């Protein structure tokens, strides 16, 4: 008896959740949600290679990426952006994948520098992994290393993308 009640409650909960998702996905609420997501992009504090020096300069006072709501944060569990800063070596690619899987939905990937695109100056190295082989990259920033202005530009491009195409994906919940 008790078992059947909890089961029916569970199915009711699932039903309620489905309805809520449908309401959220409708026009006015969805726009507000995407606007909120686009101004609270928190990258995980995860430095993969030498472009980190320019990434640090981008979050420093002169370029101040925090005015876009972009704040590097310590724990991957509270973040929604992975910033691939330069080359991904084989050992680092495993860690990058792990960090990406730890983050809650919706999550985004920005790949910085020439190395994640096609290897850059290290194109013929034996220890390189291209970013698009392991992660769904949203925005690429070319350059070796890209200037901090380019980092700010990539954040704005990601914000535009979220506002136009919608940030959240509820595939797992459905």
């Amino acid at each position, binding site marked *: 008896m008790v078992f059947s009640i909890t089961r029916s409650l569970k199915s009711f909960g699932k039903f309620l959740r489905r309805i809520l998702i449908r309401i959220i996905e409708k026009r006015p609420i969805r726009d507000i949600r995407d606007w909120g997501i686009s101004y609270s992009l928190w990258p*995980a*504090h*995860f*430095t*993969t*290679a*030498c*472009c*980190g*020096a*320019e990434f*640090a*300069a981008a979050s*420093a*006072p*002169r370029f101040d990426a925090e005015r876009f709501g972009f704040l590097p944060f*310590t724990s*991957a569990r509270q973040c929604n952006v992975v910033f691939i800063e330069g*080359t991904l*070596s084989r*050992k*680092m690619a495993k*860690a990058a994948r*792990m*960090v990406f899987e730890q983050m809650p939905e919706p999550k985004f990937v920005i790949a910085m520098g020439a190395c994640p695109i096609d290897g850059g*100056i*290290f194109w*013929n*190295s*034996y*220890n*390189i992994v291209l970013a698009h082989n392991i992660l769904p990259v949203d925005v690429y920033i070319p350059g*070796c*290393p890209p*200037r901090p202005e380019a980092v700010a530009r990539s954040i704005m491009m990601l914000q535009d993308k979220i506002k136009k195409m919608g940030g959240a994906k509820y595939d797992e919940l459905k």
Partner: protein
Amino acid sequence: MSEDKFMQVLIGPQHPGSGHMRFIVKMDGDIISEFEPDIGYVHRAVEKIAESKRYIQIVPLVERPILADTANINLGYILALERLLGIDAPPRAQYLRTLLAEINRIHSHLYGLGIHGIMIGSSTIFMWCFADREIWIELAQELTGARITYSYMIPGGVRRDLPNGFNEKLSKAIAYMEERLKDYEKIFINNPVVTARLIDVGIIKKDDAIKLGIVGPNLRASGVAYDVRKIEPYCAYPEIDFDIIVRKEGDAYSRVLVRFEEIKQSMKIVKQVVEKIPSGPIINESYLKLIPPKLREKAEQTGIWKMPAIFINLKPRKGEAISRVEAGRGEVTHYIVSDGSPNPYRFRVVTPSFRNLIAFKYTMPGHRLADIPAIYGSLDYFPPSADR
């Protein structure tokens, strides 16, 4: 069982401190009993790739491992290559090289100081250091055309001459920085929180520092007056007056102080370089002949030299060459073996961070878990340079 007493803690590679490495720490309560750095996260095989590249193509390649201190590591490579080619840069080029190397040392030290600040929880010093670093980066940008990857030195000279009005901007920057360093002393160096966290933490004794082969400011903080710029002077350093900063304590605080004082020394060097710089060509005359006369006229007007395309076929004699340079984080050694072809037969670079790495293993045990960022930051470790 005694083994149950210990707990293994894995820190990184995704951790709040800047750095792409993992620490395997064995804890006895709150005390570190064993500390093992796990490197190789940024290994990109620079040395192996160099064997497939032409000599001139290696110039930007060697910069990538030490992105915060590119001018110095580049200078080391160029000195080794020049020894192999049997060519020398003219005096004006030597002074320009010294100028860029010291500007780079200043912003490399500011980078280290800022990262160390945020590791021990002082966001203010991170913000200040990174804001003031931009002033030096902009000066270097005006000289070379790039923010941090300069590729300014070429075999036989440098790429560009001093731009107009550079001296005024430089003296302005020095005056500003001298005022700022007083503020730094107030808010960071003499801050009771900073002194409490850094004094008597992570001590490297003089004998241990020599035995472990530690280099750079970390060695000088342990009481050894060793600086390649004085011991084996290169470029314009023999004609310039500066002091080696030495401290006896060998703790994290003294390492910070050595870097802090070295910023002042570098500014002293930069001042002298601008005063003493001789006039003349910036590329060796035998290479100057290779440039077509029309381009040479244009270059003399603008001060920007374009490398002739013949440089790609640069063939040094058969043999080997070695060079030592004092970079921001310590001594860099370059070793090139040539077999007479346009690609090097073997290229080896020993970077300062690789030599300082061993210090982690010997300084950390006996300290508390919370001391890890304080010591890690004070060693000014740059992982890509250790992994290459």
